[in-house]
């Protein structure tokens, strides 16, 4: 249709225009974030993308004079621990719901699904009371515990495991493999794309999580990056250049995670052991 030198169809022009506008809207704040991170405090409100005297001083200050590195490591640990726990428990529960018949299976599934409909803002109060009563306030475990399992992940994994033919599992049962190893060695490798997607969602969600970490932490040593950066914003003045610098550094792990895992998603589901 649109091959060699034929005029580009109007439909494509319209689509590209919308995509372009979308891209600009998405990218502008990020570009300004990077731009601001190279500016001095008094240049922040100048619109120039590249300031007249760009500086690395914000980055140096961030690592030398604030607890940013600590927060960064906290965030990484919390996000990693949560992601690993979510990958394990959500797929275990999803697998059980998809592949085993037992009384009350539907009810359990509906209950888990219903947790998806409650917004975090409503959950933080019971979480807080729970954390307080268990003495988990201002601790890493307190930061992590609400996220060790997610209804969304259970739902996602259940859907994917339902696509795994029972014959694989039966073949492994005949082979004399125990049920837990069937889960880890046969079923899990077949849902790698789903696991990658879930890993990305969970990691990003926890990396950027703000409300719960803000509520549960009170000492600066266990702040996560978003909470730490927010502390730069004081009652009387905000250190915008520092917030922007910290945010710029904070995008790095998300980029790395995404670049590392996306090929597993894109590669698609590996099937082929069944008839081709």
């Amino acid at each position, binding site marked *: 249709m649109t091959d060699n030198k034929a005029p580009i169809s109007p439909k494509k022009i319209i689509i590209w225009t919308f995509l372009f506008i979308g891209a600009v809207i998405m990218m502008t704040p990020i570009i300004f974030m990077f731009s601001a991170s190279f500016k001095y405090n008094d240049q922040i409100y100048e619109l120039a993308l590249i300031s007249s005297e760009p500086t690395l001083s914000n980055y140096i200050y961030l690592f030398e004079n604030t607890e940013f590195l600590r927060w960064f490591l906290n965030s990484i640990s919390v996000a990693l621990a949560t992601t690993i726990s979510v990958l394990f428990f959500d797929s275990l529960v999803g697998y059980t719901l998809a592949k085993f018949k037992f009384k009350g299976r539907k009810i359990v599934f509906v209950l888990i699904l219903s947790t998806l409909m409650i917004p975090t803002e409503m959950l933080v109060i019971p979480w807080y009371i729970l954390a307080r009563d268990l003495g988990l306030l201002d601790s890493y475990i307190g930061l992590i515990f609400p996220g060790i399992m997610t209804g969304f992940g259970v739902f996602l994994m259940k859907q994917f495991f339902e696509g795994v*033919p029972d*014959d*694989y599992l*039966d*073949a*492994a*049962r*005949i*082979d*004399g*493999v*125990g049920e837990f*190893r069937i889960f880890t*060695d*046969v079923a899990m*490798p*077949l849902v790698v794309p789903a696991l990658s997607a879930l890993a990305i969602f969970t990691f990003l969600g926890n990396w950027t999580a703000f409300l719960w970490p803000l509520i549960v932490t009170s000492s600066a040593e266990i702040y996560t990056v978003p909470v730490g950066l927010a502390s730069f914003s004081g009652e009387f003045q905000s250190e915008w250049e520092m917030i922007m610098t910290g945010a710029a550094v904070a995008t790095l792990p998300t980029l790395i995670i995404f670049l590392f895992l996306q090929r597993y998603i894109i590669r698609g589901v*590996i*099937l*082929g*052991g*069944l*008839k*081709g």
Partner: protein
Amino acid sequence: MAAVTLSNISKTYGEKSAAKMIIEDLNLDIADKEFIVLVGPSGCGKSTLLRMIAGLEDITKGQISIDDRVVNNLEPKDRDIAFVFQNYALYPHMNVYKNMAFGLRAAKMDKREIEYRVQQVAAILEIEELMFRRPAELSGGQRQRVAIGRAMVRDPSVFLFDEPLSNLDAKLRASMRAEIKKLHQTVKTTIIYVTHDQVEAMTLADRIVILKDGIIQQIGTPMDVYNDPANQFVAGFIGSPEMNFIRAPKGVADGCITLGIRPEDIIIAGDAPLPAGHKKIKGTVTVTEPLGAETLLSVDYSGTEITAKIPGLYIANPGDDIKLALNMQKAFLFNEKGERV
């Protein structure tokens, strides 16, 4: 040594109120080293029965023993069986070697012993060059071999096959059929083989079990069930092309309403006198299908379609009148319940 005995096996699916009977009070004795083929129409419970023997499905009632050992409550791995699935069910993320070794590793077998066994089986099945390929990189026939290989390395005393050849094309199916037969002669184990292809049943089986709605219709050698079908269902099921069923003329036998005759027992009635015991009928040709060595002739006989298998090439046009002769000595008579008369 592995005789398999099924005593009063029943299987129902679903809750008590809406229970669906799939297998009903089934008894079957399978001798050691016997090649048993289970045939029957789709949904008659063949796979269910096989899966119950394998231990993949609970038994609602009855008892299964392998080698005088009741296995009702044994795990599949403890039953000394191997199962070949219709869709092969090779683990897609493992190469051929790992697919075959997976069960042995789970049994914590010595590494060198595993290697030795896999190599041996691979040599028998001629799949040695495929060891490091994944299932997706194999052809249908190669996958089938690997699936059989995975069963063989377990060195089981009973092989269970669930329609292993149904995903292959006709030519490959014929050659794999011959190989399975050869395999049985080499490994000398009991084989229970499910198919709905009656050519497979006839060529492979020591005894055929014909199943319908979860009830055994007949058990017998291929020749038994072909020459002496227990009822109209078996008569129609075994033999290809299918047996013809026509309304029996009055006075043939008491209570007989259907006459069954195989296509190969029908000849063209020429002008010469008919051989003894033949009965002439008149019809109209509807279709001719020349197959080379023989011709299949479909004839409309007062509203019923009859197929005749004529040796050699026979040329006729649709609409031609034709006279056929039925060999009444080879005809089967059935009453209205489909029972033999």
